[in-house]
């Protein structure tokens, strides 16, 4: 029993240390306010979107055009090719898994693709349905931050816009990710950047059209 308690303690410490956001630096909101409904911009009526894309990982820089298409209620397709048209990635993504239709040789690493899948899982498959969150405020921007401990997820809602501006999540030490969403017009983000600080990966997506 004691060893079980010790193990639980270790797991909690590990889980907290994996988090890309430090709650100690946020202002906790104690009063009980209604948690607003929010969802991924890729939910509901999303069909497809084309982005100017760049990926920086381990000192390599790749650029080109990416296309994200909803292929079913539970899956998305991510294609990324360079400007000349040669494919880097062709992935089918589900909440907890992925299928590689094609991955350019040097990028075809299982651990890396799993991290990418997890990053997209945060972007595509999260929403206020993720559980009952703890409520914080960003001390600088005053954005509302909702922490869903069961889903290992932080969701930031803009103070005035009420739009989803940031997602942060993790499932292990190596796949903590920070996702920033920028809006110029309309409810769909014009820019998305996915940062995975622990492996030094940055995927930048700038909307070209839907």
């Amino acid at each position: 029993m004691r060893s079980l308690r010790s193990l639980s303690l270790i797991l909690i410490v590990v889980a907290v240390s994996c988090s890309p956001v430090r709650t100690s630096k946020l202002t906790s909101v104690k009063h009980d306010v209604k948690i607003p409904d929010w969802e991924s911009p890729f939910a509901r009526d999303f069909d497809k979107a084309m982005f100017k894309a760049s990926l920086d990982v381990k000192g390599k820089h790749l650029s080109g055009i990416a296309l994200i298409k909803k292929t079913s209620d539970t899956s998305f397709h991510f294609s990324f090719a360079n400007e000349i048209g040669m494919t880097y990635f062709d992935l089918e993504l589900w909440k907890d898994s992925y299928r590689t239709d094609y991955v350019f040789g040097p990028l075809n690493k299982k651990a890396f693709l799993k991290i990418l899948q997890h990053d997209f899982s945060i972007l595509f498959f999260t929403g206020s349905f993720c559980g009952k969150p703890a409520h914080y405020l960003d001390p600088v921007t005053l954005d509302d931050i909702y922490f869903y401990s069961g889903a290992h997820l932080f969701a930031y809602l803009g103070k005035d816009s009420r739009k989803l501006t940031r997602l942060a999540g993790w499932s292990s030490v190596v796949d903590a990710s920070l996702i920033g969403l920028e809006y110029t017009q309309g409810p769909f983000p014009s820019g998305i950047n996915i940062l995975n600080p622990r492996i030094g990966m940055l995927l930048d997506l700038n909307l070209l059209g839907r």
Partner: protein
Amino acid sequence: MNKIGLFFVFVFCVFLQFSSSGQVKALPAADADMVKKSISDAARSTTSLESGFIQTKELSVIKEQIVSKGTFYLKKTRLLRWEYTDPFAYLIIFNKDRIYVKDEDKENHINIQSNKVFREVNNILIGAIQGTLLQDTRNFQCSIFDQHDQFRALLVPVNQKLRETISEITLYFSKSDYTVEKLVMREASGDYTRIEFVSKKINQLIPDEKFAIP
């Protein structure tokens, strides 16, 4: 076999006959060599080439297209300016062994020997436009087809490493001036990219500044 069975066998045989006669056969080696020589001669007499292009990337799995447009400038020897204007500005200049990439505000200088992807892109683009890929027997097996007003050159990589990325390249040459009109690059993934060349200007003056690397 009953009459209905015999009828279906007959229809099947007729279908096979038609489908096989519809296939374009590769030119015999002697004719293919003559076409290659004409393409090579045309390339030799071409000192510069300027053309617009429409590039269509077909994503086979999700049945979608990505269309890009731009202009390229080619000048002897091994100077190429490949410039996208739509859906966004992107410029690549190949100047002998040096490559310059301008992606919006970001500029990048690359040595062709140290970057495998750009080396392949450079070889394929320049080789396709000048038709020299047809002579590259070390990397490609080439078949030539006579197709209406064009010659179609099918290039299948023999190099295993290259075949992991590209399954075949098809070049379409005009029968009137033997310059390339269309390039289709089929990838191992099943996707393919089609580049159609439009408004070609052959042997017009292109200033060297077009290929200058800042």
